[in-house]
């Protein structure tokens, strides 16, 4: 068997049903091998390698299984880099396979040679440069093991062309792994720790649970819900934790952070015990970290020991699996005496809801998302987003009731994530309704993937909130830079908006629309429509959902709307902007 065949056979044996792969000179043998295993594995051709890697992420985020992307050497490989870094920050299990120039040519500045292992060291969980065919089965086994276990993350396998072509008979496809320094699972949580935490909860008068992506990744959402119900402790999630707790739960305080719910931020500011589960005290959550939950005792449970005491010192740091932790806690936890605090939190939630001008005679972004959320409430829906204002509004106004239904580039904040990620989700879940809620800036960063959606029959829907601007940057310009437009208008530079001379009337639309997204979508073979009137919204959404193939619904929205509340970077809850 050739190295390329061993690699593909190994993919099949690791349960890979679909991968996203863009061929080139140094990866052709692997593509040839993929055709030989075509009955067992589906190869989807993205239109850009970055799209392929984000699709692999979408696949992994929706299913929890390892997503796989492949690219050729050099530019093909470097085009994966952003998606790899993104997967590292959001702990997404993916394996990226890159072609490499033949081992003899490595280091000679050969055509399409880049030192991928060097480039990827800091942005992968682990990386391999394969130098011998005989190492390949072990490396594949290790790569999938490392990507999926512990705190998940991306693994790079760099495959020189001569290794792909090398032939080896009698190869053991299931050799032992050689990972003496790798701990796949966290140690069991000592019963003494559980006792200590139970006592801390009993003593607390104003406890808050702060739950993050680790709960979703750890498959612990059910256990978390049980824990909240049993303890009655008000709960906030992070952006990555959306879906872990249904928003209707009586103790849900939605999500916290820079654009999170005011009541979530107030509750954390005032709590006396913070139970942090699968979170990393990210700066978009904490703001000024010294002031974050400053009067609280902090319990921090994470599978990654390096997160404990990293950004914020914990009084009870616990390295462990959050699902095991919650299972143990659910056996012993009792309701602390916190009825006053619960009432206080309910009142806070009622007093400071996410809100917008419902009387606006046109379509506001928040209204569009809320309407979409209502219409799709009972459907099997998966949502992806780009990065920016629309992402924050989607988090605020779409109701995520199940884990692994919200897919956002949260840590790296990569524009262009939404469409390719949706494509990957759809490939994993053909029967789900997959919607990319996107902005016109983000959408254009990977718009070419409409071709993939059409050609590979992935009926992804793009719900495009088109304000003709880079809305989040515009918002910062408006708030902190006297509204001076600095390259945040996406239309021709001859337009008034380009220099910010257009009257900054709160609900004024950009005067001329650019580009014509309906034509673009149709050019790719997708269905499309453009709407501006509020009355057209619901019908247009239904039409989008009913359309058989991929579809772009271009929704014209004003660009002066700001995402609120907002805690400016590095500031505290006291500095929260509510209007």
């Amino acid at each position: 068997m050739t190295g390329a065949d061993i690699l593909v056979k190994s993919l099949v044996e690791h349960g890979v049903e679909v991968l996203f792969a863009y061929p080139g000179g140094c990866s052709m043998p692997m593509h040839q091998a993929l055709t030989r295993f075509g009955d067992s594995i589906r190869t989807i051709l993205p239109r850009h390698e970055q799209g392929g890697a984000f699709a692999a992420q979408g696949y992994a985020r929706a299913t929890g299984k390892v997503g796989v992307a492949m690219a050729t050497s050099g530019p093909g490989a470097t085009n994966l880099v952003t998606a790899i870094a993104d997967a590292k920050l959001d702990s997404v299990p993916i394996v990226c396979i890159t072609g490499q120039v033949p081992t003899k040519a490595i280091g000679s500045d050969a055509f399409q040679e880049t030192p991928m292992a060097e480039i990827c060291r800091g942005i992968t969980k682990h990386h391999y440069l394969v130098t011998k065919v005989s190492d390949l089965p072990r490396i594949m086994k290790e790569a999938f093991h490392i990507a999926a276990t512990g705190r998940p993350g991306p693994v790079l396998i760099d495959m020189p062309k001569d290794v792909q072509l090398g032939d080896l008979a009698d190869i053991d496809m299931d050799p032992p792994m050689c990972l003496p320094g790798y701990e796949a699972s966290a140690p069991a949580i000592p019963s003494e720790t559980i006792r200590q935490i139970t006592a801390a909860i009993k003593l607390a008068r104003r406890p808050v649970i702060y739950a993050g992506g680790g709960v979703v990744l750890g498959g612990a959402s059910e256990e978390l819900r049980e824990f909240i119900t049993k303890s009655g402790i008000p709960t906030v999630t992070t952006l990555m934790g959306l879906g872990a707790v249904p928003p209707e739960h009586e103790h849900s305080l939605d999500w916290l952070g820079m654009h999170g719910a005011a009541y979530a931020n107030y509750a954390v500011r005032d709590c006396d015990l913070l139970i942090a589960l699968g979170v990393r005290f990210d700066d978009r959550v904490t703001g000024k970290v010294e002031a974050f939950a400053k009067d609280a005792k902090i319990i921090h449970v994470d599978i990654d020991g390096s997160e404990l005491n990293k950004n914020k010192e914990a009084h009870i740091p616990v390295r462990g699996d959050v699902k095991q932790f919650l299972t143990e806690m659910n056996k012993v936890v009792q309701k602390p005496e916190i009825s006053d605090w619960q009432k206080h939190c309910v009142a806070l939630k009622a007093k400071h809801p996410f809100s917008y001008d419902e009387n606006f005679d046109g379509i506001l972004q928040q209204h569009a998302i809320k309407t979409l959320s209502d219409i799709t409430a009972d459907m099997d829906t998966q949502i992806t987003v780009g990065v920016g204002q629309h992402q924050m509004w989607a988090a605020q106004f779409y109701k995520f009731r199940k884990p692994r239904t919200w897919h956002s580039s949260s840590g790296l904040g990569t524009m262009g994530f939404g469409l390719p990620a949706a494509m990957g989700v759809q490939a994993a879940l053909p029967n789900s309704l997959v919607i990319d809620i996107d902005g016109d800036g983000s959408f254009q960063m990977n718009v070419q993937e409409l071709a993939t959606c059409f050609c590979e029959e992935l009926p992804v829907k793009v719900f495009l909130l088109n304000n003709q601007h880079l809305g989040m940057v515009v918002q910062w310009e408006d708030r902190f830079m006297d509204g001076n437009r600095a390259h945040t208008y996406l239309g021709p530079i001859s337009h008034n908006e380009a220099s910010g001379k257009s009257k900054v009337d709160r609900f004024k639309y950009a005067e001329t629309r650019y580009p014509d997204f309906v034509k673009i979508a149709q050019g790719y073979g997708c269905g499309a429509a453009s709407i501006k009137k509020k009355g057209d919204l619901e019908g247009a959404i239904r039409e989008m959902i009913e359309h058989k193939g991929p579809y772009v619904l271009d929704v014209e929205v004003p660009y002066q709307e700001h995402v609120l509340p907002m805690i400016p970077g590095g500031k505290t809850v006291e500095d929260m902007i509510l209007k």
Partner: protein
Amino acid sequence: MSSPNQRHVLSALVQNVPGVLAHISGMLASRGFNIDSLAVGETENPALSRMTFVVVGDDRVLEQVGKQLEKIVTVVEVLDVSSQDYVERDLLLLKVAAAPGGKRAEIRELVDIFRGKIVDVGPEEVMIEISGRENKVQAFIERVRPYGITELVRTGRIAMVRSEDMSGKVNSGGIKAVSA
């Protein structure tokens, strides 16, 4: 809560695979850890290498350095050597200007006091080898500096725990010196 900056000697056992040194030094640099010294070499087991780091920082920095090192897949084990009874050495080679008849005798005397060796004699300079703890090596450098050091090279610190005490293992739950 912050503890004063202290000098720590960490010792990491790593898999002897290509790129492991680059991986570790890259991680330390990208996370902004200040490493005073780093030495690396094969161990009694050819599959493993030993890296010795000198880190200056408070307990929290030390904890993070240890945990981030342990997170690297090819790092097998990290020990805080300086939390235990240990031996530390640094090897120095230097050339000092010493024309015949001039100060050679004085220099030789200094070398003897520091229990070093003159390992090469040139027409205008001598090469000296000295090993010991960092402060001894440093003191020697200061003493010979006035004679005119023309070239200097050091291995960086290496360290080993004395027998029968392995309790300072930096386990994954945190570093021994840091109270949980």
